[in-house]
Every structure is written in C-alpha cells, then in structure tokens.
C-alpha cells in the first residue's frame, strides 16, 4: 500500500512532460545535465574500502570487505567478488524492511556486470593458492536517501570503494596462508562508469530525479570503460525505446562517463 507514493499525479506528469518538450526540467537542469555529484572515499575505517556518494539529494554508501575463501571450481586461479544492494527503509517511504527485492537485486546485478565485464578487477591477482585459497571481495551498497538514479550513484560508489580498498600481502608457508603486515592496493585496472536515462514521452533525460522516475516510460543504463567500450546495458520500465534513442544515449554516455570518471578520487587510503 506504500505504493501510493509511486502514483504520479496527472498534473505532475503533464508538467514534467510539457517541460521536457521545451527542453526543461523541474529542477532547472537541461535534459543532458547531471545533478551535483560528490564522491568521498575511505569514510568507513572498518571497511577495507568505502565510498559515500551524493547525486543531488540521492545518497549511497558502498563498502568493501575482504575474506579468504575457496575459488569457484571452474576458475581455480581467480579471486571472487559479489555485489549486493540493500534498499534500507531509511531511504524512502516505499522501501520496506526485509531481504532485497527485485529492484535491489536488479541494481546489484547491473553494477556487478559493469565491474565484471569491464574486467575492472584483476581477479588473477586475488589468487593465493590455485584451487584452494583466493581473496573474496564483498561489495555492499547501502541506499541511504532515494531521490532518483540509484544506478549511477551506486556504480560510482562501488568503483570508488574498490579503488580505495587495501589488502594485506600474504605468503604461503607449508600450504598455510600467512597474512603479512604490509597493505597493498586492490588490483583495479579499469574504471567502469554508468549513465542512466529516463524516457519521458519521446524525450531522453539524463540522471532522472525521483519525480521523473515516477512518470518515465522507460529507463536505460549504459556502462562504459575508459576506452568507450560498452560493458553493461540495462533497459528498465514497462515502456519502450526506439533505435535512435539508444544510439543517442550511447553518444551522450560517451561524453558523460568521461566527466563522471574525472570526479572519482584516486589514491586515497582508507581509514
């Protein structure tokens, strides 16, 4: 029943649509403008890596925890990572306590795909004893204030937290793993960044705010690496996209991913 918050009023819908037709938006942005982005790295000392991202009024925290565990049988010489998203009820009147729902799982999987397909993490460097012991990285994303476009905020948060992650050097003695005091950077070699669009009537808008998400027909997220390769894409929403929408979105994403990547802090140590 908390879904009543998702029912957009006809008046709101009409005003967002008629503004978009004129190339305008509720908060005064242009159709291709992002809201203000801030990214802070290393905010949680107890995590191996962390990042706090604000995108307009949207706020998310991403944290990385490391454990030593077993590799998957089909990739015995590679480390493992998982992405999980928690839509905690703190963040929105429509979120309810409980295990991740389909929206949270979709978000986590799209973020996962961006990191995995761009081969952002050098998983081979996470191998300790092939077939037996590897590093496992848990990337957890907590949505703290949901004011729209969780995808881009979460992608930025996850990759920043990974860039910021420190792991101990290990050595193997008589088949035993020994953790050393020296900390090294987590092996990151690509920085995937996403740009999300909302289709409102026949206009594409970048970085939709929550009011726009309530009235959009469809959503499109495009994740790119620094070589302009598309590494993840996800259409959402019950509406449709046209070929020219997708082509146009790719051209915009090419520019915007570069701008966003510039904002990611580098070389900040955790804690």
């Amino acid at each position, binding site marked *: *029943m908390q879904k009543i918050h998702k029912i957009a009023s006809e008046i709101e819908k009409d005003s967002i649509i008629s503004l978009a037709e004129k190339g305008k938006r509720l908060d005064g942005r242009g159709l291709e403008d992002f809201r203000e982005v801030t990214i802070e790295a290393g905010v949680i000392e107890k995590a191996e890596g962390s990042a706090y991202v604000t995108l307009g009024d949207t706020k998310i925290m991403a944290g990385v925890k490391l454990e030593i565990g077993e590799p998957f049988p089909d990739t015995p010489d590679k480390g493992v990572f998982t992405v999980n998203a928690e839509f905690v009820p703190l963040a929105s009147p429509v979120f309810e306590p409980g295990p991740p729902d389909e929206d949270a799982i979709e978000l986590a999987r799209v973020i996962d795909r961006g990191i995995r397909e761009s081969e952002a993490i050098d998983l081979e460097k996470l191998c300790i004893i092939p077939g037996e012991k590897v590093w496992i990285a848990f990337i957890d994303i907590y949505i703290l204030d949901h004011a729209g476009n969780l995808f881009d905020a979460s992608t930025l948060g996850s990759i920043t937290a990974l860039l910021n992650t420190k792991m101990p050097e290990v050595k193997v003695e008589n088949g035993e793993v020994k953790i050393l005091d020296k900390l090294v950077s987590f092996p990151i070699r690509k920085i995937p960044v996403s740009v999300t669009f909302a289709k409102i009537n026949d206009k594409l808008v970048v970085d939709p705010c929550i009011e726009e998400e309530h009235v959009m027909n469809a959503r499109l997220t495009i994740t790119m690496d620094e070589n302009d390769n598309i590494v993840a894409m996800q259409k959402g929403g019950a509406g449709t996209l046209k070929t020219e929408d997708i082509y146009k979105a790719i051209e915009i994403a090419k520019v915007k991913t570069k701008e966003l990547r510039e904002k990611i802090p580098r070389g900040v140590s955790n804690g």
Partner: protein
Amino acid sequence: MKFIKHEIPQKLITEDGLRTDGRRFHELRPIKLEVGILKRADGSAYIEQGRNKIMVAVYGPRELHPRHLALPDKALLRCFYRMASFSVEDRKSPAPSRREIELSKVIREALEPAIFLERFPKTAIDVFIEVLQADGGTRCASITSAALALADAGIPMRDLVSAVAVGKVDGHIVLDINDLEDKYGEGDMPTAMMPRKKEVTLIQLDGQWSIEEFKQGFELALKGCEQIYQLQREALKKRYIEIREQAAKEMGENAENT
C-alpha cells in the same frame, strides 16, 4: 579494517588513569550530531560518537499496513536497528541477527515513553537506524540520534531521550565505553533517560557489578546523559538557526540584486 593488527593492550587503563583512547574515566568521546540530513525521510539525524557512525530516519505518523496491526487508540511505534555489512571488522550478513532484533526492541521501548503516541491513533511511526560503523555503545548512540530524528519529524514528545553506556574496565567505573573496553572490559551498562524528570527508559547490564559499583555506574550514566542532552539541544537549535540563516542570506541576496 580487520587486516591492520590491533594490539590488544595488556591494560585498558594506564597507571596515570588514562583509557585506551586517552580519556579520563568520566569523559565522553567526541560527539558530532546533525539533524535533518536526509531528504526523503520525515525526520532524520546523524551521530558520530568516537568512531560510531549512525544514521536514523523517521517516517510518520503514516498509514499502517497491514491494517490489522493498527492500534485503535494510539500510533504503533516500530523500530529497526540494523548494522551495515561493512560496519564491523568481519563482514556481517545483511539478514537481521538475534542481537539486532533484541536491540530494536529495547531501543523502541526506550523511545516510546517520550512520544505522544495517543495523538495519532491507527497510524505507524517508524524509526530506522542504520549503523554504518560500529565502535561500542551503538544502541545508546542510536537512541540519542533517534530522539533528534523524531523531534525533526515534528512528532510531539514529552521530552528528548538521552543515552550513554558506562562500563567496568580494569575495576574502574568509566563513562561511554569504546569498542575495546566493550570487548575486553568486565561489564557494560547501557542507560537512557528522559532528562527533564530523570526517568530511566533503558537499562541493561552485563558483567559482574557489586551493588556499590552499580550505584556508582548508574549515577555516572545519568550525569553522562545530562551532558549528551545538552549536545542534543544544541544540535536541534543549530538546525533551526541554519534554516533562519539561510532565509537571512536569501533576503540579503535579494537586497543586493535590487
């Protein structure tokens, strides 16, 4: 981060009477309180106490579903205390633990006496607590912060609620125990009160305390709550003054433009 080796000190209190973080017995950790930090919530607050980092959001009074849970004569207060997976040294599973469920209950019961629930029959008031980093005394820091989030939501209250944990560490009674003192000390006593009439709304205890030690600890907890209460008042007023200053600034800008 767990791979930095923490030395477990032989003694938690030095010969000079200093604690692991350099504090005296009766000193609080540095506390930062912020009110109104979240956009979507009806009320919100953030606390840093030592290395604790905790966010609280309040929603309500709002419609309660399923409706059969609704109380005919007052609002239903619900409270969810949760720890982020990365808030502790070893990753915590996001599914609620028995500890989190118990703490949610005692926190709710610590806040409930302060709220005029009878003014909103059949509704729900929800308090969501997210511990982003835990450093000992999280339930008390959560209560301190939740009271501010409730006030920020405009929910009528008889009083604020202030909370702090005292501990027994190397035989000494100390205020506002940190993570190490919590883990390696001999006892922990989280306490909350409504400051106006010094009514206790939470008390828990573990460890072994003589009656004398208990009384000493309890008195210290009440004094600590009083100090925290003053910080809470400042944080609430600051929020109000910020809004006023913002208004004054905008007036100034308007004057400049003309």
